[in-house]
């Protein structure tokens, strides 16, 4: 079954993010693989998602969860082969699920042959593929991202006796994008996967591609030029394919990565994510409204990507110091929950397993402008293990059932790539797909329902947004509109019941139809529209003029 041809498909996507390693192990070695993932595609189709974002699956020393790539055009043997990937890709497409893969352009592993050659001698042709220096004082003042582990952005290479530049871990040397050969090599990598049939790339660490003296070495015009060149080639040779930017920056800075619609198709809206959590904790819409007011318009062919949780820590780089302190106090009072400038926890534990808050946040995610991303396991409310080190606590095996290894693998438990979550609250015996499939009231069933509703109305994915700003600040209300299709969304961010009066004068005469139960509500008249909401309740109303 062919995918529908629509070059703007990414706007209507509901993306599910997973790491092959974590999802399903088909060969009993304790590590998830493509065969296992392929076997679980029915589940993902049933969930209602229509795009998959796969974390790096390339050969790698795995010192940064695969973001340290040692070979860009192959599959890590523990996950399968390129053939296995092709099989998976076809099966996904057959289920109308597009596949987005990782493109880690900024750096390679220090085990990549390119770097091995580059460091072997100063005269090696690959030498100039990386950024070298005789001193570690160049680009002084450039911030260090992994503050917990790195002291400098320069690392000493004892083989070639010089320093190499790395914005992330010291085992991840940055590529030199001033070198045309590097740019050509990366395009070759992309072509390799595009020819196989992938639908898009999530480009990692985009702002750091190019370095210049006397700058922050972030968001430089030269970096944008690299992106524009890639996009041009992509549109010419592979129309309908998508580029997604990882640029953990303020919206005004990220805006530049959309260019004039000629750089990225999509970019993550990083600052919105912590503010959704903050708004619910503060019981005040202010953080969300403020950041969206600061979010510039983007070209028509572009889209924000929004998310609640992902494989990394809940990043708090794009908040003020005061907001960061609040987030730590509210969600990470145990120091073990913190890493770098963020919080290494999953959605459900952060919400203290409060189903109402989990649903409210998902409701926000799925009704605000942007393409939503659901992190694997969050649809069933999986827990985390903050004591596993790095961010491994949110990367534990998917919990399929309450049996052997949670149905993830037939291996001995000791052989699993990571311990399962096994505590009484979030353990696989309590939280798993099979048990939630059996109940139409489970979080999984609810998630399916809300995704299905979203997918049924294109207004969610492509519509405009108008905030209503009722005087009750605990209520976040907005109208999404696309042509004649209008949806009113009303969210109670508070832990107590709220009454709210909405100024819906512009929609006088419309009948609100609650979208989950399809019940009619009183017609909108001249008076402010009064609604009462239970704690953390939200409504989606279709506004119809009949």
């Amino acid at each position, binding site marked *: 079954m062919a995918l529908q041809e629509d070059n703007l498909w990414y706007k209507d996507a509901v993306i599910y993010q997973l790491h092959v390693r974590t999802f399903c192990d088909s060969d009993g070695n304790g590590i998830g693989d493509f065969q296992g993932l392929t076997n679980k595609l029915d589940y993902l189709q049933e969930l209602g998602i229509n795009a998959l974002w796969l974390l790096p699956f390339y050969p790698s020393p795995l010192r940064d969860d695969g973001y340290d790539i040692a070979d860009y055009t192959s599959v890590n043997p523990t996950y399968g082969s390129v053939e296995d990937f092709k099989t998976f890709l076809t099966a996904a497409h057959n289920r109308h699920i597009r596949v987005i893969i990782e493109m880690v352009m900024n750096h390679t592993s220090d085990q990549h042959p390119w770097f091995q050659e580059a460091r072997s001698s100063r005269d090696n042709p690959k030498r100039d593929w990386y950024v070298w220096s005789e001193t570690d004082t160049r680009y002084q003042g450039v911030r260090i991202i992994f503050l917990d582990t790195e002291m400098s952005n320069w690392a000493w290479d004892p083989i070639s006796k010089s320093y190499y530049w790395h914005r992330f871990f010291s085992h991840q040397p940055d590529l030199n994008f001033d070198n045309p050969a590097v740019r050509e090599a990366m395009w070759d990598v992309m072509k390799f996967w595009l020819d196989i049939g992938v639908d898009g790339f999530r480009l990692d660490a985009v702002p750091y591609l190019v370095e210049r003296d006397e700058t922050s070495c972030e968001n430089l015009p030269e970096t944008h030029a690299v992106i524009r060149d890639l996009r041009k080639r992509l549109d010419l040779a592979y129309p309908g394919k998508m580029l997604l930017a990882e640029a953990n920056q303020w919206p005004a800075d990220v805006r530049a990565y959309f260019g004039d619609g000629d750089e990225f198709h999509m970019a993550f809206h990083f600052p919105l994510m912590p503010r959704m959590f903050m708004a619910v904790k503060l019981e005040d819409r202010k*953080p969300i409204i403020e950041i969206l007011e600061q979010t510039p318009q983007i070209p028509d062919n572009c889209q924000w990507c929004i998310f609640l949780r992902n494989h990394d820590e809940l990043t708090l780089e794009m908040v003020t110091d005061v907001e960061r302190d609040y987030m730590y106090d509210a969600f990470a009072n145990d120091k073990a929950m913190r890493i770098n400038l963020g919080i290494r926890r999953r959605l459900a534990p952060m919400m203290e397993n409060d189903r109402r808050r989990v649903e409210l946040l998902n409701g926000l995610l799925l009704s605000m402008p942007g393409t939503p991303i659901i992190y694997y396991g969050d649809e069933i409310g999986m827990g985390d293990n903050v004591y596993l080190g790095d961010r491994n606590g949110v990367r534990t095996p998917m919990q399929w059932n309450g049996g052997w290894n949670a149905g993830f693998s037939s291996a001995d438990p000791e052989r699993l790539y990571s311990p399962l979550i096994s505590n009484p609250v979030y353990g696989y015996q309590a939280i798993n797909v099979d048990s939630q499939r059996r109940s139409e009231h489970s979080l999984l069933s609810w998630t399916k329902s809300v995704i299905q509703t979203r997918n049924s109305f294109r207004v969610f994915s492509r519509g405009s947004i108008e905030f209503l700003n009722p005087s009750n600040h605990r209520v976040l209300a907005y109208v999404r509109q696309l042509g004649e299709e209008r949806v009113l969304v009303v969210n109670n961010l508070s832990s*107590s019941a709220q009454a709210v009066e909405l100024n819906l004068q512009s929609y006088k005469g419309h009948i609100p139809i609650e979208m989950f139960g399809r019940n009619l509500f009183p017609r909108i008249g001249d008076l402010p529209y009064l609604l009462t909401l239970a704690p953390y309740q939200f409504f989606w109303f279709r506004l119809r003029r009949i």
Partner: protein
Amino acid sequence: MGADLYLAEDTLLGDDFLRQLMSVGEVDLLVAIPSYNNASTIKQTVQAVEESYQQNFIRERVVILNVDGGSTDHTTDVVSTMDGRRNVGYRGLTSLRTVHRVTTQYAKSPSPGMALRTVLATADLLRARSCAIVSPTTTNLDASWIANLLRPAYRQNFEFVAPLYARSRYQGLLARNLLYPMSRALFGRRIREMYSEEWGFSGRLATQCLSQNVWNDEAIRVRPEAWMALTAICSDFKCCQSFLGPRLPPAAAGGIDIVEAIRQTVSSLFRYLEIYQDHWLDRTGSQEVPTFGPDHELSADGKPSNQEKIFGMFRNGVAELDPILASILTPDTHAQIKEIATLDPSSFRFGFELWVKTLYEFATSYHHAVINRDHVVQALVPLYRGRMYSFFLEHADSSPEEIEADSEILCLEFERQKPYLVERWKAKS
């Protein structure tokens, strides 16, 4: 102001105002600004409160409440139309939550008691943990004042927070010579400023005060702040003082009207003695209350004005009010006052012993209503002027420390003579 100004309990808060409160919801902090034709100054008051919220209470749920007594200069419009958008003016800090601003007009003419009742009802409904009241006429109010008034109740479980001001030696003489020492001696707490336009209190005290059926009492309608302090004291609530700084008089004020000040404060104090007589009659001595910041700050600045005129008014008053004073005071006290009124201005003294005895006799005469109570209080005015003049002479060359030491002696004299007051108070009751 007539009784018709008072709304029934169920309409104390109008529907529009209630709607605003619904939107605010529960709060941690509430700062109220009673107003009446303060359009020219209230903006800076609101800004000071917002700045304080942003500096000191970034995470808290907060509200600014303007209760207006029927302004005709659009004071409430100034408050409600001020730019309320994100203000990052102070070191980039901004409140995490919405800073709410609500306004209500409680009557068509001003009444401090009615304003306070509205504030208390709001605090009670919103379950505010800590509240403060500030005046839009205080031209030098700044963000630190707000924090100093709110913090003790919010962070340290105090129920009433009295302000302390830096004074020049001739400021606050009514408090220094009468209100403070007398209320201290009677109620047993050393709170210097019970009559002020700024103070703080807990939500618990707000609820306690709101529940009392006192709102038609003239004293509470006119000067409710001391009643609130005394309610806290008599309920054994934790009280404290918080230093704010110098308080500049309103720029437009034409000087302090002693007659009106005494009419309001002294008559209310005398009235409170009746309301709370069960609490003070058997109480002896006085206790310090915790104080944040210096417990006083007195500068040597300032000059007494119109000394001769003040003395003349004292002397004339004693003569003109002789029959009234005769009905208020004991013959012995009356005679002593008449005697000092004959003294040469340069050697005049209205000593502590006589001053305290005089006041206690005024209080009992007020209590027993020997004559019209308003006349009792008005008759005190010339005698207070005599005490003022005496103060000027006694402290012409005193240092601030000497003035403070002398004030302490006066306080102790009030405490020493308290049995005399109790005896007379009980005599006819």
